[in-house]
């Protein structure tokens, strides 16, 4: 690195910091507003003194966000765990075993990625009514457990594991299931972590399916609870922002903890289901 680039590095960094600040201003404004009094909203950028009453209001009283949190957590945890296991199984099947019709089946998987969710909303609505799982959490959990994106992404990773490793286990007499559980899954930990984080964030943020398949307020997830709060309190700006903070902050924490995995996963597979 020469003198010239060292000199230009500082001003460029400052310019980019200003641009980056614009990207995160909505978050800062949200947190700041949630700590203001109603009289201060839109009048000033920072609260004169930290007012936690809006945060208290959304965790106690009429709009208790705790049930919404627990509902979202339940759906995202069970859904992600199921998707992780079933996708890994299928991905191994497609990557490392041979059977009749394998390639044709994989092609069907790929082509299903083109089907927009809007196409199957109505049949799913009818199907769930028929199965008596409409307006239950299973209507969100069950479909989430079968992820095409997961199969696609993990298959890619499994194909990258050197053949020699699994081959020598074969010669020692191990079957496919032993190899999958004892050898491949431990090796695939980073890929599994990446998929788990991405899948969890999709399910945590899922609004469209919850909107169509949940009706009772006690079953609401965070996005629906938030929407409900705003429909009924559309001038309580401090409360709105406190509730939004409560929904967003867990995602920010997950991002900060899993940043490495998320960015790796997105860079390596620019495909989304």
């Amino acid at each position, binding site marked *: 690195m020469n003198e010239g680039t060292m000199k230009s590095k500082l001003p460029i960094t400052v310019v980019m910091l200003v641009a980056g600040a614009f990207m995160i201003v909505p978050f800062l404004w949200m947190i700041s507003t949630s700590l203001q009094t109603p009289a201060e909203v839109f009048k000033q950028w920072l609260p004169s003194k930290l007012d936690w009453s809006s945060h208290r209001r959304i965790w106690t009283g009429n709009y208790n966000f705790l049930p919404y949190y627990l509902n979202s957590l339940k759906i995202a945890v069970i859904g992600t765990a199921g998707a992780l296991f079933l996708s890994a199984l299928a991905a191994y099947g497609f990557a490392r075993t041979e059977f009749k019709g394998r390639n044709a089946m994989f092609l069907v998987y790929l082509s299903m990625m083109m089907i927009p969710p809007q196409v199957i909303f109505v049949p799913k609505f009818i199907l769930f009514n028929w199965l008596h799982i409409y307006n239950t959490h299973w209507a969100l959990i069950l479909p989430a457990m079968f992820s095409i994106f997961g199969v696609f992404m993990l298959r890619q990773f499994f194909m990258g594991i050197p053949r020699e490793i699994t081959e020598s286990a074969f010669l020692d007499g191990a079957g496919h299931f032993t190899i999958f559980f004892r050898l491949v899954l431990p090796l695939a930990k980073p890929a599994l972590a990446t998929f788990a984080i991405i899948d969890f964030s999709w399910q945590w943020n899922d609004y469209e399916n919850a*909107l169509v398949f949940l009706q009772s307020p006690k079953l609401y997830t965070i996005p629906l609870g938030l929407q409900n709060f705003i429909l009924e309190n559309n001038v309580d700006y401090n409360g709105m922002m406190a509730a939004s903070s409560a929904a967003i902050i867990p995602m920010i924490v997950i991002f900060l903890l899993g940043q490495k995995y998320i960015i790796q996963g997105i860079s390596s597979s620019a495909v989304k289901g």
Partner: protein
Amino acid sequence: MKRRGWVQRQGWVGYAFVLPNMLGILIFLILPALFSFGLMFTDYQFSNPRWSFTGLDNLRRLFGDDNFYDSLKHTGIFLLSVPAALVLAFLVALVLNRSVYLKGLLRGMFFLPYISSGVAVAFVWMLLFQPSHGPINEALRWLGVVSPPGWFADSGSAMYAIDVVQVWFMLGYNMIIYLAALQEVSAEQLEAARIDGASTRTITWRILWPLVSPTTFLLLITGLIMTMKSFALIQAITQGGPSGSTTILSLFVYKTAFSYYEMGYASTISWFLFACIFAITLIQWIGQKRWVHY
């Protein structure tokens, strides 16, 4: 030779791995899709148990429906966010890839909106764009704009305000992928161009931009498809209003099915949406070979 024989004898094992996932995909995706295709030719309504086959009536209705053409126009404006986010992301990635301090922090700042997507963010933007006292219009007035737009409250500007939020949301995702692509570009090549006296602008648009064109193409296609499918942001902020001005195609399907309960007609619109996505995918297959410089 020996292993090959073993694999063949174990031929059923593959099914055991794939079957659990396959069953779910069949029940929750493939069969519903086939069923939806059938619904297209009926006048099925959820509230009314009596229905009949109506042939191509739904399609005829679609092509005579003004709401449909309006939704196409709105979708078109919504899709403008895709190239806008691409170009901005390329420029940001270019700068971050070159010499800046605090690269990790900056990358995180630009990427944060993508991970925090969802309804919560939609409501924050709703307040930021609030016409009379919101910070965006306050800032515009301070800059001397006498009557700033009504944003989400005005049918002329609502779709463009949605575009702003969408660009803000997608920028970081595109940037991450551009950063990965730019890391593949060899330093010697750039050094050679610099020694030959090429300006920064020439290097950017004549060398780097063509070199990352496979990435741009992929991001453009996946971005168009993803944007066509999504409606959560719009549903949360405007529910398609004011006066239908933000009802894009995917939201039009949702409203027809679950506000008016016209399931047959909704299926027809949703298959038109599929046709658009299919056409974009075809362009990808054909275009990858013809337009992309490797």
